[in-house]
């Protein structure tokens, strides 16, 4: 937070989050039941949410680098920041898939679910933090460079 940021940076993030969360509510993805109905082949709406959203971002990702050099609020270049592929993508994706298939929740939709009044979702949010903490503990170990620190 110490870095000099454009005064509109956080307000813009908030507005983006607002639209994002409103969309998750509108699409019913904030309801775990609706996600489970897709995974059980009872309602094929979900892919239209995900790919509808990906088409909009896809247009932005394709057009902006051609019309502007840098983002106005950060000065960061509009470039593809791709995540590298390795076995973790498949292993993590599979673990995520089991959790998603069991619960019908994913991170963004879980936060939105809280917003539509679903306080029961706090179980899922608590679980996500616990899971992220467990993997962070485990993955911090080899990176710490201190073999004696268990």
């Amino acid at each position, binding site marked *: 937070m110490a870095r000099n940021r454009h005064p509109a940076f956080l307000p813009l993030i908030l507005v983006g989050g607002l639209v994002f969360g409103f969309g998750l509510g*509108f699409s019913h993805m904030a309801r775990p039941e609706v996600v489970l109905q897709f995974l059980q082949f009872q309602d094929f709406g979900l892919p239209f949410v995900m790919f509808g959203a*990906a088409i909009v971002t896809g247009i932005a990702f394709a057009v902006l680098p051609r019309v502007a050099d840098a983002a106005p609020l950060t000065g960061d270049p509009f470039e593809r920041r791709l995540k590298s592929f390795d076995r973790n993508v498949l292993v993590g*994706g599979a673990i995520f898939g089991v*959790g998603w*298939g069991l619960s019908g929740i994913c991170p963004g939709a879980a936060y939105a679910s809280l917003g539509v009044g679903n306080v029961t979702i706090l179980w899922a949010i608590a679980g*996500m933090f616990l899971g992220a903490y467990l993997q962070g503990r485990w993955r911090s170990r080899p990176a710490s460079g201190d073999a004696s620190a268990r």
Partner: protein
Amino acid sequence: MTLDPALLQAFAEPFPNGLSRYVVGGLLVGLGATVIYVGTGIAAGASTFLESTLSYVSDRSRFQRYVASRGWRLVFTFGIILGAALFAATVQSGLITTSLYQSGSTGRIYELAGVTLWLTDVQPWRLFLGGILVGIGTRVGKGCTSGHGVCGVGSASRTSIAGVVTFLLVAIVTAQVVAALGVTP
């Protein structure tokens, strides 16, 4: 030539709630991510919030990598909650009526201070256990349904497409097995 009603029904059956609400909602989700990208160049994902927020309470190296971004990620998540609450206060409460919204057959509706809210029927143990696996999986797998599914697929990232295909297939198998075991809801 008249359209065969059986054909129409065959098309409508996979979409008992219609298609429009999913498409409109999806376009808004994409628009939210685009607003952030246009201003900041950030391709936003929702799951890094877990690790970045843990950096407030743990000094493990894995979490400390996200200290620089934890502030805006809190604001982004707060925005998602607030945006969904805005949906609840308007469309879900009937203040704005649209044919795209029906209160639906899932979960339970309840009122609080004039706002119509919604509660899931999915059992807490499923949410908690699923949440733990989602928490581990998104972090090991470098993204979730928004980071990989929306921003990653939007940027035609092969890594993200591989991630999405993996978690979609595994989730379908898992949900089918859970349903076959008779777990409802």
